């Protein structure tokens, strides 16, 4: 059987989650490997969430937020951006390919973009193979 990655997606309530909804209602196809979790803002995604997701066996973590300047809470997505930058370095240090963590800006109207980035991310994770932490949990 080919490798089907498990990807946890933290989606911001105001943009990325609505974008995912739009992709659904517009009947756009994208792989079913992602498990979306709705958060109120991409800035709500603690580093701990990302680490816990990987610890519990996720192959990739996707974070979707509003475009810079569009945050419902003014600056949440800037915080997310900074945090992801830090987390990538941390993951690298811990032996996880930083490409397994991805931050994308998806607005509520960008259903097509959501479908595209998710398919692309799933492809990328398939290429990388299972997470080294997957079996150990």
């Amino acid at each position, binding site marked *: 059987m080919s490798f089907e990655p498990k990807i946890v997606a933290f989606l911001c309530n105001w943009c990325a989650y609505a974008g995912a909804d739009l992709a659904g209602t517009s009947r756009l196809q994208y792989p079913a490997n992602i498990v979306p979790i709705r958060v109120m803002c991409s800035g709500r995604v603690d*580093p*701990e969430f990302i680490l816990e997701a990987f*610890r519990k066996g996720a192959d990739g973590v996707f974070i979707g937020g509003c475009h810079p300047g569009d945050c419902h809470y003014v600056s949440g997505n800037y915080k997310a951006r900074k945090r992801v930058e830090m987390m990538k370095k*941390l993951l690298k*240090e*811990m*032996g996880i390919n930083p490409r397994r963590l991805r931050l994308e800006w998806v607005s509520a109207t960008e259903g097509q973009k959501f479908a595209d980035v998710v398919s692309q991310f799933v492809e990328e994770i398939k290429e990388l193979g299972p997470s080294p*932490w997957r079996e150990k*949990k």
Partner: protein
Amino acid sequence: MLDKIINESKAYYCVECRKCSSACPVTRVYGKFSPASIVERALIGIDDEILKSLDIWKCLSCGICEEVCPSGVEFLNFIRKTRNLARKENNVGIYAHEGIFESLQKLMLSNEFNASEWLQGLDVGEDDTLYFAGCLPFYDIIFKDIGIKSTNIGISTIKILNSAGIKPAVMQLCCGHDALWNGNVKLFKELAKKNVKEIKEMKIKRIIFSCPECYRTFKFDYPKLDVEMMHISEFLEKEEIEWNGKEDEKTYTYHDSCRLGRHLGIYDEPRNVLKKVGIEVKEMEHNREMALCCGTSAWMCCDWKAEEMRKERLKEASDIADVLITSCPKCQIHFRCTLSHEGHDIEVKDFAEVVAERIK
């Protein structure tokens, strides 16, 4: 429920003199917290209230209360065991940094890390001496914003050891100190088991620490290891070191970290070593046993109270010196954090860094 803990920590000796509360650094800035009242409440028997309160998480476990206690109540022992019990009742304190450090500890347990970038170009890995670096490389990444380079402490320590003709093996794993003091004894035991197993396999004779927390945990809380353990300052005091003659106009003061000072009783060694490399340490008003605290321990409950404590300490230091020497990487992080938004005219440096610069 608390009876056993009261017996083990000799809390029944408490004479309610409240010396501990008058010395406690938390009570200084936040009068509602009092170690004495926690013990009194436990002795009266309102266990429920204690196990559900946030008070037990506000303690810094700095140990000043034990220094002043006339009856020998082991408050640190008491608070640690109470925390473990409170955790079972779902009373967990407020983690600083969104609990990232606990996640890291859990991850270290089940995975092999390869954080070796900072070790490149250093002479390591041949001797029967082990340098236990702890979590240093992770601090670099997490605290990049406030200019933390914790690995410099590690690099300096290795350089010092090299100049003494030792090529140490290096180990980077969490010792479990934070888990233990946060009442997560299960996680601590697992980490300890992993560390002990690895160290036994390595067949080494001596472990050198630069982090007082790791040292404390290895010395008192780990099962007995048949190896010699020492802090880098203890090592340097025995070793014959030569000053390279470097001088500057700056004045230096030394901050006793709670783990190295009150927990382990190492006060003179770092001062003697600094003297050897030509640094005259000016003492702050609160020094040695009565040293003030950096405000947070085990990444728990960092708030305005901690900030107040740091400001007070930094003011005390900046009044008399230009450079504050710390011996614990966490003290350095906490002081730098306050310095990043408070204007105190002082530089914070680690003991190992200062010595490595001035050694032949």
